């Protein structure tokens, strides 16, 4: 039982981070119909900026327990970079999807050099932050409290995002724009502002994900590309444009990976893509996606 819980928590921690990035990807596609390959860059940006923010907070005398709120705030703040990036994307909204893919892929590569310029080529870590909250022991299990806090933070963000989209007026406008842009514009919705807001929120989900993961791992130039591949596996499994799909896909990927590592470590990557292939064959739109005409 302890072993099972340990593996389960490992998988859910990975899923929690994946969900944030995939949710950003889904939100942007759902509303703007843009497949944003640069989502991995936002994740990496959050990680790098999180390190800088925690360093500044530490130098300013902030106590160790403030690491998590500082990281979340840092992620939200740097997520505002989504606004100028969205301005660039406007040039290709009405063009063929391949232009969007090329542009966002170009951004992904350019961001790598931005990280190199500001933070250098060497992987960066937050050494003490991971252990700032100690460890939690229950049912014979010992887990870093930080992992549990990240899982809780991801759940809170998922709930808040769901409530925002479903229960608020702005959420309804966003969903209406996603359903039919021309009709919503006809009813007086300023779709340009909606797009800017949605893209920025999508970007913030990625930057917060990156900021949250960095105490447990490290920031590196490659992390953007590595994550983007996994995030797309989540999206394919969950269904493009679906927030529920992002949640289900992230959990499936996280748990399957954790189980494979336990049972057959060589199949860590293979197991994820077997599921992707199975979904593509049996349910091409994904578990929660809508079939496109």
């Amino acid at each position, binding site marked *: 039982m302890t072993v099972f819980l340990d593996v389960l928590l*490992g*998988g859910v921690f990975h899923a929690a981070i994946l969900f944030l990035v995939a949710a950003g990807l889904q939100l942007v596609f759902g509303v703007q119909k843009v497949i944003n390959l640069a989502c991995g860059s936002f994740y990496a940006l959050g990680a790098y900026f999180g390190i800088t923010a925690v360093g500044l907070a530490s130098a300013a005398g902030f106590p160790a327990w403030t690491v998590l709120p500082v990281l979340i705030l840092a992620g939200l703040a740097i997520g505002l970079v989504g606004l100028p990036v969205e301005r660039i994307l406007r040039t290709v909204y009405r063009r063929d999807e391949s232009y969007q893919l090329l542009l966002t892929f170009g951004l992904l590569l350019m961001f790598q050099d931005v990280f190199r310029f500001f933070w250098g*080529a060497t992987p960066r870590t937050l*050494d003490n932050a*991971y252990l700032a909250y100690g460890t939690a022991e229950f049912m014979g299990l010992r887990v870093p409290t930080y992992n549990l806090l990240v899982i809780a933070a991801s759940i809170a963000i998922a709930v808040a995002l769901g409530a925002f989209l479903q229960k608020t007026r702005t959420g309804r406008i966003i969903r209406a724009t996603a359903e039919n842009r021309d009709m919503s514009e006809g009813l007086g919705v300023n779709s340009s502002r909606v797009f800017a807001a949605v893209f920025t929120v999508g970007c913030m989900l990625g930057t917060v994900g990156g900021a949250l993961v960095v105490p447990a791992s490290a920031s590196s130039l*490659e992390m953007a590309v590595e994550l983007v591949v996994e995030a797309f596996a989540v999206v394919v499994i969950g269904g493009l444009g679906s927030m529920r799909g992002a949640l289900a896909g992230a959990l499936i990927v996280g748990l399957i*990976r954790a189980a494979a*590592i*336990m049972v057959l470590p060589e199949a860590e990557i293979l197991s994820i893509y077997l599921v992707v292939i199975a979904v593509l064959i049996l349910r091409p739109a994904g578990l929660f996606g809508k079939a496109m005409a």
Partner: protein
Amino acid sequence: MNISRRTLMRGIGAAGLAAAAPGIFSPAIAQSKPVRIGILAPRSGAMGTVGECGIRAVQWATERMNKDGGIAGRPIELVIEEETSPKDTIERFRRLVLQEKVDCVQGLISTGVSLGVAPVAEEEQALLIMWDGTTQDGVKEAMPKSQYVFRSTDNECEAVMASLLSIKYFKGKIKRIAGINPDYSYGRNNWEAFQQILKRAGVEVEVVAEQWPKVGTMDLTSHVAALKAAKPDFIFSSMLFADLPVFMKQGSAAGLFEGVNLALPAAGWQINQLKKEFMPENIVFGHNTLYFALPNASPLQKAFVEDYMGRYKEAPSWEADRAYFALAAYKAGVEAAAKATGRWPKLTEIIESIPKQKIESLGGPGQFRADKIAEQTFYQGLSTNQNSYDFPTLKTVDSFTADQLQKPPGVDFWEWLKTSKLPV
């Protein structure tokens, strides 16, 4: 960036020439143009840290050698290029040789890249001295008779040494072993070598877990959970990139290392990232060919470490030693050949001369074998956190020479492991 760096290096070369003390070489040689050394080293990615360390060391060596007359009276000028993928690095190697017309190319850390570049060096008849790259296909030497390519020590040396020290320090306490090693031939061969050496030493063990994260995996929580579930009493890990500190941090937080002994043969590569907060003590900790805090270190090492730590506020890894060794070997080879011929030697004369020279490198003595594979001095020992740094040092320092840890020319590694006279 490269242009300004080259300009800087030219400056260093010129300054060195101006400051050069009168040497043993004739004015005809001393007045010649600079010796151009091409450097290929990673500056980003998983190996960026160590590549940068090697570059800093070769720059330090260049400055020092130039102040002392350069190479046979000619100042050294570095032309630095980045080591990335095999394809791109081959293109840069050709550029260095054909366009920049360097006298020698040094560097390369990845064996995957080295395997691609080495045949090109043979084809171009260009001298290549590798820092950490080998031409091993797994554990098998792919270029036993290279003419122009000098290789580093075999990749498995540190694993062999860590295995021997594990037996020395923990025999009787190793019953249930687990491995977490990078998922490519280096990791797999090291893990296999560890098991073979235990077997040969009569240590009967049960392998309770084997983990193979791909290089660069930064979320290892599930790997840690799997290792914990297996309840090992000894963990062997030859992880050596940025993923090693992540593993140690996540493992420590999850209580993985309580009551468990560890061997980390390549940990020294990430020394500055392995913070005491998450590093247990008494790890068999590998520093390869440079232990920065070596007691009774040579004046050369002391001078280097002091300069390096003063300037960069961190400890140098063994890549610094490899970079210094490559340049020092070239210098020694050229100068011996120049002395013998009374003129600047031909490339073939330099190549013949290099293996005959005993080199004092940063980490200790070393020499190239006749088959152009390096033999250097290796350092490992048990770690301690009782020091003034924020990372572990060694409380016991063991040192072996590569001839004790490395298969002789033309011999199968696995056969050698079964039959060789091992030092422990």
